[in-house]
Structures are given as structure tokens and as C-alpha cells.
């Protein structure tokens, strides 16, 4: 598999090569795609954050924030996209992660002259930054992208300092991060996931040792005895997300449960809209 950068470059070149005259005007490198279709809740949020909401003509079913997106046509679940459906929106570009599919649809779209940008979903900082820069370039708001990256870096620095200070007083707490999906069985973030990265950034210890996202039994969660339980749900917020947890809460009395509903998507999505803070 190619590195994300090389892939993006190739995709970009390929997209430009196949653009037919029937679609948008023949683009030079100065012309930016005006009609955007985005697949992946987090990506869509970034497009909006970079000021591209007006360019969006269609989003997938995981793109739920901000609420104004609900008015846009939905192209379906990102793994089962419909070529003709997307083409009916006359897009110039389709952005998404490697989760987009099925592959024949993507190649059909490329043949139709739609630029298909596949961004990496690796949950680490360098990927995040390069993706942001790429999006910024495509949206024509590189400055905004740089700003966002800088502010994010700043936030992370602040966070690291705070963690260092906190760790002088006590050891890192054991944490489990649960990602829910509208109330269905929440999954525990394992090693190498975005949730894991988040926990580390916040100075906690991820008690889960598996890779990827897996469903744990209540007993298993209780057995791990987390001191902090973070619950992120795509749709539910606040008390509603708490209700969705199993009745017998996997925390002892010492555990605090924190809820951050804006952590986007349940699969290996790498982008977080804002960092997660908690107090031990």
C-alpha cells in the first residue's frame, strides 16, 4: 500500500487527467473543485471548519455535525456508495477515507471525471496535519488550515503541560473509552485507535489491550476497573448517552463518567473536533 502522500498525489493527477469537458470547466491547477461530496463524519466536519460548507452538495450518513448538514442530500453509507447517485449531484470532488467503497464505484466515479480524494485514516498527528493541509489546499483555504493546525498544536501543548503537572501529584488513571452509535452496543477503543491516542494525550492509561474497536461485556469492563470512563456517542449527548450504557455500570464508586458527544464516528476515524478534557 502506498503512503498516503504518494497516493493523494497520484489520485490528484489521475483525477485531473480524466476530467471530461461535459462536466465542470477544464480545470487548471488554479481552479479548485466547487462542488464537494464528503464521505465520513469527521472529514465533513473539517471541511465545514475550513469554511467549505457552502461547497458541499452531498454528504454520507455518518456526517451529522453541524446540524445544518441535515438539509443536504445523503449519498448513503460510506461503504455502499452509489455511483449514479453521486453523479446526479454533479460533483467535482469526492473526499473520504479508505473506508469509502465499494471500489468499483470509486473507479466509475473517476472515469466520470470526479476527483476522488482518499485521505488516510491513520489515527496519528502527522496524518491529521497532512490531511488538513490537503483539504485546505483543495478548498483554497490553506491559511485557515495552517491556523487550525497551529491552534491544535497549541491546545495539545497546553494539554501536555497540564498532564505533566498533574502527573506530579498522582499516577496516570486507568481509562476506558467507549464509542457508541446512537445507543447501540458501545465499543471499547483499543491500542492504535484514535480513542487510544486521545487517552494518551490526556495523560491517561488505556486499560484495553486489544487492537481496533471491540465490544466488551460489562463484566470484562468491570474487571478492568477503570478509574475514568469516557463515553463518546455519535448521536446521543449528555444523560441520554449515559442511559445507553448497560444498566449495571462498569465503574466502581470511585469512577467518574465523562461524556463528550462530539467525538466523531465509531470506526478508525482520526479526526477529533476538539480535545477531550477531564479532571481526575
Amino acid at each position, binding site marked *: 500500500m502506498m503512503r498516503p502522500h504518494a497516493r493523494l498525489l497520484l489520485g490528484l493527477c489521475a483525477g485531473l487527467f480524466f476530467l*471530461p*469537458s*461535459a*462536466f465542470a470547466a477544464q480545470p487548471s491547477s488554479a481552479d479548485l473543485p466547487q462542488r464537494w461530496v464528503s464521505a465520513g463524519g469527521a472529514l465533513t466536519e473539517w471541511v465545514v471548519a475550513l469554511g467549505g460548507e457552502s461547497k458541499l452538495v*452531498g454528504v454520507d*450518513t455518518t456526517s451529522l455535525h453541524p446540524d445544518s448538514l441535515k438539509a443536504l*442530500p*445523503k*449519498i*448513503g*453509507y460510506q*461503504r*455502499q*456508495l*452509489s*455511483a*449514479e*447517485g*453521486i*453523479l*446526479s*449531484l454533479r460533483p467535482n470532488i469526492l473526499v473520504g477515507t*479508505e*473506508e469509502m*467503497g*465499494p*471500489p*468499483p*464505484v470509486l*473507479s*466509475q466515479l473517476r*472515469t*466520470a471525471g470526479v476527483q476522488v480524494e482518499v485521505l488516510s485514516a491513520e489515527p496519528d498527528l502527522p496524518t491529521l496535519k497532512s490531511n488538513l493541509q490537503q483539504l485546505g489546499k483543495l478548498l483554497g483555504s490553506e491559511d485557515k488550515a495552517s491556523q487550525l493546525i497551529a491552534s491544535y498544536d497549541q491546545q495539545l501543548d497546553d494539554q501536555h503541560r497540564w498532564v505533566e503537572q498533574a502527573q506530579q501529584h498522582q499516577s496516570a488513571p486507568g481509562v476506558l473509552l467507549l464509542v457508541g452509535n446512537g445507543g447501540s452496543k458501545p465499543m471499547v477503543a483499543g491500542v492504535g485507535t484514535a480513542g487510544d491516542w486521545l487517552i494518551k494525550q490526556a495523560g491517561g492509561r488505556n486499560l484495553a489491550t486489544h*487492537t*481496533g474497536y*471491540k465490544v466488551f461485556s460489562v463484566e470484562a469492563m468491570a474487571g478492568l476497573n477503570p478509574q475514568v470512563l469516557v463515553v463518546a456517542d455519535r448521536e446521543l449527548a449528555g444523560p441520554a448517552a449515559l442511559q445507553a450504557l448497560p444498566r449495571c455500570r462498569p465503574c466502581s464508586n470511585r469512577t467518574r463518567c465523562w461524556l463528550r458527544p462530539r467525538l466523531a464516528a465509531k470506526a478508525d476515524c482520526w479526526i477529533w473536533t476538539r480535545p477531550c478534557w477531564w479532571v481526575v
Partner: protein
Amino acid sequence: MRVFLQPRPLFIILSVLCFLAFWLSLALGPVSLPLVDTLRAAIRLTGIPIQGDNLEQAELIVGQIRLPRTLLGLAVGAVLALSGVAMQGLFRNPLADPGLVGVSSGAALGAALAIVGGSFFGGLPDAFEPYLLSLCAGIGGLAVAAMVYRLGRHNGQTSVATMLLAGIALTALASSTIGLFTYLADDATLRTLTFWNLGSLNGASYVRLWPLLLVCVVIICWLPRRAKALNALLLGESEARHLGVEVESLKRELIFCTALGVGAAVAAAGMIGFIGLIVPHLVRLLAGPDHRVLLPASALAGASLLLFADLFARLVLAPAELPIGIVTAFLGAPFFLYLLVRGRS
């Protein structure tokens, strides 16, 4: 006394329906193309150079997206309907359906195993992937069909109840095995496993179409030649034997044919249920159980039905798409229940 349609009017009606389904499938879709453009693009595709401006988009949509999809729908619909007829002849029961009996799940499991096995060796070679998938799906379907048949046989009689129950058990086994793979897999290759559960004609391409078309042609050419023998088989196995039919070899052919057909269909489009149940039933209602009429009529009717269902699936939620397995289930399950109720009275 029930009046049946004569074969000739029936075939005329079904051919017109199929033709209509074909053209509507090419002409309609989320992208609205003027009908003239569709026609011109279609003519262009056959190689005849015809004048027309702005035809690139039409040619692309019609030629690259809609035409392979339509052909896929035709082939899957025909093959599933014929497999249904074969299965109902084999079990001598009009409620037998490859999906209900577990053959579709077996085929899906076979394909899933091919994907899992392929990922061990670093991915399946692109050129062979559709053929390999079809083959493995066919083997999976064959294994289940043979098992169900064996389980349902007792003392020379076929118990339909046992066969359906065995089908339920084997479907559960196949589905949970696929679920296990999905659960254990983090790898991108295995994400396609979720594809099998709800069939869809989405993403149809000519490459994926070939194995299915091949199988379709084989089945369409071979099954109707056994029409008379299938009729005799309905009398009963001994009666068929006394009429000179080589019953054992016929049964093997039917099992093989069903597994091959369902396997190819599942490999190409995922699990699409109830076509094998609804279509032969409707055709029998219209034209009687004679296989000489039933087989070709079911192929035409199955193709038409699937194309119409696909049209609905494509347009109802545009620009998103409903998996066609949902549409056929919504049509088929109530129909099945209705048949059960009617059979009792």
C-alpha cells in the same frame, strides 16, 4: 376450474415485460438523462456511430454504470428464478427456495472464506478474483445443498419440514461464521464481508459480470432440456424411475445446477432472497406447473422482477441506494406467509 394462460400469450407478455424492464433500467436513474440521449448512447455503444452532442455523460452513465448493472440484474434474476424452479422440482415442494434452504448462506460463506483465505496470501489476483469468488461460493452452496438434501431424506421420502429446519440451522451457522470473520477482522479486505448480507447490484462492472453470465448461459441452455424429466420427478421418485428417468443423476444435476447458479449470483451481487420463491410460484399460478413452460417463463419473469425491484431501490432514496435484498425481502416474506396461510385452508 382454473384457467391457465396459453404458452404463447404468456411468453409474449413476459418478453415485453422484460424488454420494458431492460429499457427502463437503462433510461431511469438518479441522474436524469433525456430519453433521446439514452437511446443515442445505447446505439453508440453497439458501435454504430451516431451524431449527437453532449453524449459523453450519457455514454458514461449508460455504458459504464447502467448497462452492466442491468445485465447483472437480468442474469441474477434469471439464475435465481431458475434455481428456485430446480430446487422446487428436487424437493417436490413449491415452498423450496434456495435462500430458505440455506444455499445462499452457504454460498456467501464460501465467498467469505475465499476472501479470508485470499488475504492470507496477500490479496486475490485481480483478474481471477470474480471467477475464484464464484467458484468458492458455488462450492459453499453445493456443500449446503447436499447436506440439506441428505438430512431431509428418510426412507426414500423427502421431508420438507426437515429440509427447511436444516436450512435454518445451516443459515445460522454460515451467518455466524461470517459474523465471526467480520468481528475478528480489522483488515480492509475483510470489510467487504458485510457486503454479502444484503445483496446489491451496486458497483456492477463488466469484469465481475463474466462468471455469472457464463453460468447463466449454461443453466439456461441445460435446464430446459430436463423439463420433461422434471415433470416426471414431480410424480414421485419411484414413479419417475418407472417412467424411465435416471432419477439419481437428475437429482445430482439439480443440486449442482442450483448451487452453481446461486453461488455465481451471490458472488456477483450478494444475498438476494425470495426471487426463487416468488417467481416460479407466480408463473405456476398463471401457466401451470409444466416445466417446459415454467423454466423459460421463470427466467424471463425473474429477470424482469429483479430489474423493477432494482429500479425502485435506486430511485426511492436517491442519491443514496437501498440494498435490493431489502426490497425483495419486503416483497417475498409476506408472500411466503400468505402462501403458508392459503396452503392450510
